[in-house]
């Protein structure tokens, strides 16, 4: 059994039909468990007080915002190279989810930044690159919805995704050059010496898992509806021909 078997829409549908329910249940369990654990059973930070708890929403959504784009990049490449329709549809399905994750990271960051930094918004490199990422999502989704022919749309958005990735990374480092940061550095790296304390780290881990599962579940669900939509169109066209 190889990965490419999923490229067959029928196979994809039958497998995801069985998988999607458990993934949704697991995602809900992780999110509910992790958030309750994080919100009610961890101590307040000695400087940040209870605002530290927004980390359980902010960090996972920010992580998924970037990884959703990375996933779109991979599926776009698969579409351009091997032309599997499921791959293109998965990229299309992931984009709005990624955009919402980006918005969520920006919003929770603003809510946290208001009491902590004393400002809703600061032109800090990380914040700015997330705003730019949001604009890239916007353009990508706009291009998908503007083109009627599905194959042309898949091709053009894939090209945009590739070029956009280069420029997104470029912007990421350009803004570092442009302004000094206010955002704290990475505190979850596996190789760093000083990280966030374990009390916060374990519930965060559960929340991270929950967000990943939620993302997978949503993308699968959206891909399935895209495939169904494509089938309906095919049936309609066939009936019009007959």
């Amino acid at each position, binding site marked *: 059994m190889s990965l490419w078997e999923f490229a067959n829409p029928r196979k994809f549908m039958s497998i995801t039909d069985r998988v999607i329910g458990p993934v949704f249940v697991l995602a809900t369990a992780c999110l509910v468990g992790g958030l309750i654990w994080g919100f009610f059973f961890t101590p307040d930070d000695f400087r940040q007080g209870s605002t530290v708890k927004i980390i359980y929403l902010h960090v996972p959504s920010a992580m998924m915002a970037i990884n959703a784009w990375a996933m779109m990049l991979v599926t776009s490449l698969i579409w351009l190279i091997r032309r599997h329709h499921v791959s293109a549809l998965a990229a299309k399905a992931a984009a709005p989810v990624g955009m919402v994750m980006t918005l969520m990271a920006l919003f929770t960051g603003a809510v946290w930044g208001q009491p902590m930094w004393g400002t809703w918004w600061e032109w800090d490199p990380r914040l700015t690159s997330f705003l730019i990422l949001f604009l890239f999502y916007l353009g990508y989704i706009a*291009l998908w919805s*503007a*083109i009627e022919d599905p194959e042309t749309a898949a*091709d053009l958005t894939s*090209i945009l995704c590739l*070029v*956009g990735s280069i*420029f997104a990374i470029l*912007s990421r480092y350009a803004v570092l*050059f442009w302004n000094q940061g206010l955002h704290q550095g990475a505190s979850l790296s596996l190789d760093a010496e000083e990280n966030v304390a374990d009390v916060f780290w374990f519930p965060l881990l559960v929340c991270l898992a929950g967000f990943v599962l939620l993302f997978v579940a949503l993308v699968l669900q959206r891909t399935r509806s895209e495939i169904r939509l494509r089938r309906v169109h095919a049936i309609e066209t066939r009936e019009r021909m007959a």
Partner: protein
Amino acid sequence: MIAVLKRDLQLAIRAGGGFGLALAFFLIVVVLIPFGVGPEREVLARIAPGALWVGALLACLLSLDRLFATDFEDGSLDLLATAPLPLEAVIYAKALAHWISTGLPLTLAAPVLGILLNLPGEAYMVLVVSLAFGTPALSVIGAFGAALTVGLKRGGLLLSILVLPLYMPTLIFGADAVGRAAAGQGATTPLMFVALITLGSLAVLPFAAAAAIRVNLR
């Protein structure tokens, strides 16, 4: 390739507004800024580098949607695509024509508009150099955006949504170079970054644009 370049330039001149329109737009944007922020000379001098760069960028954007659209409508893009000349070279020629008709005049006009915005004296040279380095990137990135949206009926607005985020690194380094020069610091590093982006875009984007046009002509 030279024939395509000549043809596009002649079209730009004779159709009217090729050279003039972008320049006039640039002038108006720059004139509007003091009305928006007030006429204090210090404030203007502070924002002049960024304002000039953003103005040039918007002026560049203005004529992009006609880069391939007219050729697409009358069918000459099909002929260009099937011609012995590779499509990538056609895109180079068209981007170059776009640069000569917008980027180059903008670069030359920028110092004059810098006077209007009270740009500090040390920054004029860097302003011209940074625009000369940066505007080719704007043209070729714009050609890519235009290639993506060529088949759409109302591609103009979508084109700006797609292209403006791609312009961001060029703008950051370009405006930063002028800003540093205006503050009396060395501007070599950001200028080199602008040149890097231009060279990188010139090397990669015509291929992406050609791929997009082939998809659109299918």
